[in-house]
Structures are given as structure tokens and as C-alpha cells.
């Protein structure tokens, strides 16, 4: 398959690396969660892409349609999306609690406050 035919997968790699970079480099706890979301979104696209069958239609039983896309990866990733939403919610809830306790959501300032104890 040509490089252009793998378009989806290039996007996956791009999103994955961008998200990963944000998680590692950003000092803001909310931005880290955003990076984590990007990272997870890339995996969603990976799963959805692999379910595509060339020339296949949506997997709905209908007359005259013989070739379907594989619905299983889509169903799987629906579960993973739910998990991702729950992780984001919990992460943000933790950030709120951290901000209440420390008065900041910046990693280096939190670190400073812990060090000074």
C-alpha cells in the first residue's frame, strides 16, 4: 500500500506523538489531561481504521449489500471511549482537589510547596 493509502495511520502516529509530548512536557495539570486525551484519541482512530474493509458498506443487513466493514473494532472502541471519558473526569476531579489543597495547578509550584515542608 502506498504512503498516501496509509493516511489514517499517519494521523494516528502524529496524534499519538503530539499527545504524548504534551503529557511529558507540559507543567500544567489540566494540559496534561488534554495531552492524555489526544493520545487516547489516536488509539480510537487506529481501531476504527482497522475495521474498514475496502469497498465495504456500513454493517447493516440490507438487500443488495454483500460486503460489510468489520463492526467489532468499532464496538470495542466504544468501550474504550467510555473508559477514556471516565479517566478524564476522574483526572479533572483530582486537579480540582489539588488546586483546592495547593492553590495552584502548576506542577513545579506544587513541587516547591512539597519541598518546603
Amino acid at each position: 500500500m502506498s504512503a498516501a493509502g496509509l493516511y489514517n495511520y499517519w494521523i494516528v502516529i502524529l496524534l499519538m506523538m503530539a499527545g504524548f509530548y504534551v503529557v511529558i512536557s507540559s507543567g500544567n495539570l489540566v494540559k496534561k489531561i488534554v495531552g492524555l486525551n489526544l493520545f487516547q484519541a489516536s488509539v480510537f482512530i487506529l481501531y476504527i481504521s482497522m475495521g474498514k474493509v475496502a469497498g465495504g458498506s456500513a454493517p447493516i443487513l440490507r438487500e443488495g449489500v454483500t460486503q460489510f466493514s468489520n463492526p467489532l473494532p468499532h464496538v470495542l472502541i466504544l468501550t474504550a471511549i467510555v473508559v477514556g471519558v471516565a479517566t478524564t473526569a476522574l483526572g479533572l476531579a483530582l486537579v480540582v482537589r489539588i488546586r483546592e489543597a495547593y492553590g495552584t495547578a502548576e506542577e513545579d509550584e506544587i513541587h516547591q510547596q512539597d519541598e518546603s515542608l
Partner: protein
Amino acid sequence: MIAAQLPALQVVVPLLGAPLCLLARKGNTAWALTLAISAVALLVATLLLGQVLAQGSVAYAFGGWAAPWGIEYRLDAVNAIVLLIVTGISTVVLLFAKTSVAHEIRPEQQVLFYTSWLLCLTGLLGITITGDAFNLFVFLEISSLSSYVLISLGSDRRALTAAYQYLIMGTIGATFILIGIGLLYMVTGTLNMADLAGRLPELTASRTVRTAFAFLTVGIGLKLALFPLHLWLPNAYAYAPSVVTAFLAATATKVAIYMLLRFMFSVFGAGFSFGAMPLPTLLVLLGAAAVLSASTVAIFQHNIKRMLAYSSVAQIGYMVLGMSLASSAGLTAAVLHLFNHALMKGGLFLALGCIAWRLGSVRLGDLAGLGYRMPWTMAAFVAGGLSLIGLPLTAGFISKWYLVLAALEQGWWPVVIVVVAGSLLAVVYIWRVIETAYFRDRGEPAPPVQEAPLSMLLPTWLLVGANVYFGIYTDLSVGVAGQAARVLLGTAP
């Protein structure tokens, strides 16, 4: 027949128990319910281990859908023993929890605490019992999300940052595992582990399979706190509530070890993981580095909980060393250490829970003279510590002995040296606690301290006693570990 439904009940009972627990108004009601459910789960796990030892393996098709299409639960000696550890530790720690939780967690949060506990238990049991790779990911996230909540309930505000850090690293790990499973599905078109194991041998040259292998190794390594991916663990264990530390230290990393064993040996097969891929070199180097570096760092900790957390990273190193040998003896040692380490760390963290309950602190300096004021608690700590070091007549000795024998069998002398050096470092950090507690005077203006109540001492001594029992009567633990090793290497059903 209820006996045929046991694999489903193992997971369903705690899963349904969690929302039921949420309905309880008072912390004590929730505690009683959680304890009852955990005890039922322990009973189920015991019966399942009996079935496995009698029949070799047990399969359960969920909803009657046959294996490659439906979700299958599959039990053999490897996961039956892990189920027993998880439910057993959960039940014993819960016996301890009532007093400790009432002290450490605000009353309005106690019901939520026990609900999260049950969800975490569900997740850990689900990972262990399932025979479906994607199902494993879902249970992994159930246990992870609830353990982040459990850790964040610690009274120190640093518990929040520790939970956040664990959330970030844990999610990256779980997502790596998800990518690995996705890539495997891409080339094989199946998610059932047994089915995957059947189809992968033809595909070992595929770059997709090799990439999946790499993602799974790193992802599980993150959950496992394999050196150098262990950075989340010390803070998470140090600032979590006492009972949570005891529960997670004794179960969560063990389940991750099980995941690694299951993927590397049962799914990919020892031939691929340890032949075509450079896994033995990687594991032996990382395992040795974990033992030496984490044990050394443990010596310089002032917070004893943190010290034991670093020691956990080192103990994981021993299990990984055993695994890296990829021989029957090495795997026996790894599974045996998995079982024994759960007992010793559970006992030690419960003893620390007693100390935290009386002193409100687990800093080394505050323990001065405690050996005479809380004799039973400190005696439990010493006994658990000796097992951690690996003195004869304790469980720790048995697993290290098997590990040394396994390394000698292959002539891996450096591994033997690492095991001995790690044990000597353990002597140093355990001795620091003993010296402070027994040979240093308590400061002048110290308030009187009494022994911990019986409701806390009994569970602690139950685990510490198990250390001694399994140090002398090794038939059960060595027998099951040996069978598990044979299952993993494919020489037994």
C-alpha cells in the same frame, strides 16, 4: 449446578456488591457488606482452586457463547493461585480496615471508599480470570480507576498528587496495552487468548506482531512498576490510606506480574518471547537494576511506608529475574515469590497501619522505643521483615532459595550475586527500623502509647503467621507454583 457457575460468580458478586454498598448509609454497614462479599469471593476462589487442582483447567463461556466469539473465562493453576491471593488479602485487610478506616477517612467518604474497594477487587479478579484480551483491558481500567480513587483518599494532600501521577502513568500504560491488543487483533482477527496463542506462531516474522509485543511489554511494565517505570509507585504507596497500601501492595502488582506471564508465555509463547525477541536480556538487566537500585534507595528513606514501597519495587525485580530464566525452576520461583511477597508485604503494611493508628505517623524518628510500647505490633513487623530479608523458616527464604537454585541450574552466577546483595541491603533497611524501635530511647515529652487493639493485631498476625507457615510447610505453595510453571511452559494442561 452452582459449581459450574463459579467462574462467573467470582467477578459478578463483587461487581454487583459495589452499587449495593453505595446504598448503605453508614460506613460500618458498608464495611460489613464489603467484608461479607470479599469473604464470598475468597470462598469461590478456594473452590475454584480445588476444581483446577482436580481437573487441570476450567473454562466458562459467558452467556453460552462458544469460545472464539463469546468472552471466555479460563482458569488454570496460574490464575487460580492469583485469585486466591487477591481475595485472601482483600478479606484479611478488610478485617483490619474497620478501625483503621474510621480513623483515617472522613465519615461521609467511608461508603464511597468501600464501594471503590469492591470495584477495585472486581477489576483485579476480572483481569486474572478472563481469557479474552480486550476484556482484560476493560477490567484493568476498572481496577485502575478505582485504585486512583482509593489512593487519593489519603489524609496527606500529597496523596492527591500521587494519585494524579499514577493516573497519568497508569493511563499511558493501559493505552499501550490497548494498542498492543489492537495490533494483535489486526493480524489475527481474534481476541481470545487461547485462539491468539494458536494463530500467532505462524506470524512471528510479522512486524505488526513484534510491535504489539513491544507495546504490551512496556504497557504492562508501567502497571507492574518495573524499573525504570516505577516512578509512580513510591508516592502512591506512601500517601495512600494504610489499608489501601496493604491491599494494593499485596495484590495490584501481583496481578500485573500475572498479566506479563500470561502474555509472554501463554499468548506469545516462550519460544517467541524468549527466543526471537530479546526479552531475557531485557528482563534480567531491569530485574537486577530494580533489586539493587530500589533496595539502596530504600535505605535512605525516612518514611517507613515509602521505604517498604521501594522495597516492593525491588521484590518485583526478583519476580522478573525468575521470569527471565524462562525455565521451569525459574517460573516456579517467580510464582512462589509472587505468593510469598503478597503475604510479607501485606503483613508489614498492616503492622505499619497499627503504628499509624496509634502514632499518627510512620516516620522513622517517631518509632524510637516503640518496641516496648507496642510489643506485638513491632514483633509482627520484625517477623515480616525477616521474611522480606529471606531468613530460613520464613516464606521469603523459600522463594529466594528456589530463585537461586533456578539461576544456578543455568549457571547465571551474576543473578545469584544480585539476589544475595539484595537480601543484604534488605537487612540494612529492616535493621534501621529494628534499631530505632528497640535500642533508642523515646524522647522526653512523649505521650504514652498503647498497644494496638486486637481487631487490628489479629489480621496482622494472620498474615505474618502465614509467612512462617509457608516457610515451613511448603507443599501447597511450591506444588501450585510448580504446576503453574508447567502450564506456562505448555508441558501441562
